[in-house]
């Protein structure tokens, strides 16, 4: 940015406040990120290298034992279950959320849209714990669902304390996020694209798959990622609805920090692995999103 021209003093005068301005604008977010994201992550990483650390201990990085423990079959099984719940929830949210978001964004009367969205987001205002307890009430053997099924002379379902109940609870918790993000994406969809597709001979389903879905792909990816990440961290739903075999990675981490064993090192190692997995997912999204953005 340096100039050799005689006008240099003037340049300095204007460029100095410019970098100062940039610094001032970026500083709050930068400090925030450093304090609340970068430093804690580094601390967790440091802790993850320490075997047998207790609260209050002096930290001495020394090894990868904590990481090796992750490869025990039981721990791998736990991580696998977490991934399964998170992926299953993501797929269910996508399957159920897309039609809803589509309907609200493209088909519902315009003046009702905000109200419909609000209605859909309303459950988010209650405690997630309360929602899980509500599902216990609904799904238990003599609960609301089975009372209804019996009155319709249908066979009852024993869902509570099994994996389907976890998926139901998690999908219910995360569906509003998916719908909101998909709505934002679908709302921006240029309707002339749909007309153009119809004009070129595409039936509504063909137009949906060849235009609507590709056009909203960034939204689909963002919504899926959010649901996946949040689902990966959820332990309330698996815990309350999943029965005896419901240990998830998040719960295992919780146990290491706030449970009886207090193994912060292993908990940190496990956290690092999850952070890495999630970062990888985000990196893929950014890469993918970029490719898509270049065409916009």
């Amino acid at each position: 940015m340096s100039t050799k021209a005689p006008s240099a003093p003037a340049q300095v005068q204007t460029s100095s406040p410019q970098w100062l301005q940039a610094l001032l604008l970026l500083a709050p977010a930068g400090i925030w990120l450093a304090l609340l994201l970068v430093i804690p992550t580094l601390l967790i990483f440091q802790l993850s290298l320490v075997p047998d650390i207790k609260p209050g201990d002096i930290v001495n990085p020394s090894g990868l034992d904590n990481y090796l423990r992750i490869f025990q079959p039981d721990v791998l099984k736990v991580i696998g279950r977490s991934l399964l719940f998170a992926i299953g929830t993501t797929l269910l949210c996508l399957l159920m959320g897309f039609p809803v978001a589509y309907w609200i964004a493209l088909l519902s009367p315009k003046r009702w849209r905000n109200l419909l969205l609000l209605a859909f987001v309303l459950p988010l205002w209650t405690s997630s714990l309360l929602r899980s307890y509500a599902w216990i009430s609904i799904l238990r053997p003599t609960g609301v669902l089975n009372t209804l099924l019996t009155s319709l002379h249908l066979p009852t379902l024993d869902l509570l304390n099994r994996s389907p109940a976890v998926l139901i609870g998690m999908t219910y918790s995360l569906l509003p996020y998916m719908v909101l993000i998909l709505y934002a994406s679908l709302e921006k969809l240029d309707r002339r694209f749909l007309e153009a597709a119809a004009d070129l001979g595409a039936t509504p389903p063909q137009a949906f798959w060849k235009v609507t879905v590709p056009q909203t792909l960034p939204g689909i990816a963002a919504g899926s990622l959010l649901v996946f990440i949040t689902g990966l961290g959820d332990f309330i739903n698996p815990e309350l609805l999943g029965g005896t075999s419901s240990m998830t990675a998040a719960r295992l981490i919780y146990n290491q920090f706030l449970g009886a064993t207090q193994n912060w090192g292993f908990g940190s190692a496990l956290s690092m692995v999850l952070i890495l997995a999630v970062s990888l997912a985000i990196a893929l999204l950014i890469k993918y999103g970029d490719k898509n953005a270049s065409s916009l």
Partner: protein
Amino acid sequence: MSQTATQNQQATDTHVGFDVELRKVFKVFNGDTVVRGVDLSIRRGEFFSILGPSGCGKTTTLRLIAGFETPSAGDVLIRGQSMLNVPPYRRPANTVFQNYALFSHLTVWENVAFGLRIKKCRKSETQERVKEALKLVKMDGFANRFPAQLSGGQQQRVALARALINRPTVVLLDEPLGALDLKLRKEMQVELSNLHQELGVTFVLVTHDQEEALSLSDRIAVMVEGKVEQIGTPSQIYDRPQTPFVADFIGDTNLFRGKIEGAHPTMLWIITDRGLKMKVQPTDASGLPLTSGAVVVSVRPEKVNVSFSPPDDAINCFEGRLKHVMYLGTHVHYVVQLRSGDQLTVRQPNALNVPDSDTPIYLHWGADDCLALPE
């Protein structure tokens, strides 16, 4: 499938000869009547324009043909078949949209191939036809670009190729050149005209640009407030407007309100509201011969003659003073104020020896150089 449909239509439309027909079509949006009983018959292979000011219902009319809107009343026919229950994706019409609506997630090649891929065309045939279509619009070098990487004119060409590749019965163009700058617009007009001649397909163009409509079209429908004011060839529309609106909207004109004082099969005597007495030769174009009542006399600026001394035995001769001079390159416009108070625009090919504003000048025109239009 579309081929058999075309064959079936063959029998019915040989005596009709129309590709698109609108019969007493109405369209109401939320209690607002946008199209009011439009009747149109567009001939096979014709370049037909719908011309009108914004909000006149011309785009809605086009969308009714494409099938994006369904008429509130009336019927839309393509090749003699009612389209009332035919969704847009089954109509043998393709549209070039205003601002093109090119799929942003697809390349130029994929955009053009879209229609063929939907129809599950064979790969080799698709390849060939896309190549051909891109060549036709001179875009063969841009197949792998995305629409965002193209200029407006290039996008326009791709949109054209995309609409033409399905070999539609009729191509609908919704203000296709509106977003281009003047020079590019002129170029594209020429290309559109060439394409139309080359392909022989029916074109229906919606535009608010009278010059565009006049230069490109075989026939023009002038619309205002949801109604068709007049349908005719460019010269009919320009030289023989049937309503004061058309006369005023197409080109420049001078209008005088008045009423008929005397009628003869070959001459009308009219006195304007400001007391000017005019002789006008009646035309048959206006349907029923005018014999009485309120009329508007229209005189095109280029039909008005100017002289500096009172001409002998000239009819429709009025004295005035020169108010303004507008030099327009190929010609000059003079604004002249008559003693009656009326202002006239006069067009002359060359600059006159301009008199000052105190010198009387005399304007006159022949009885066959002006029109009397029913009010």
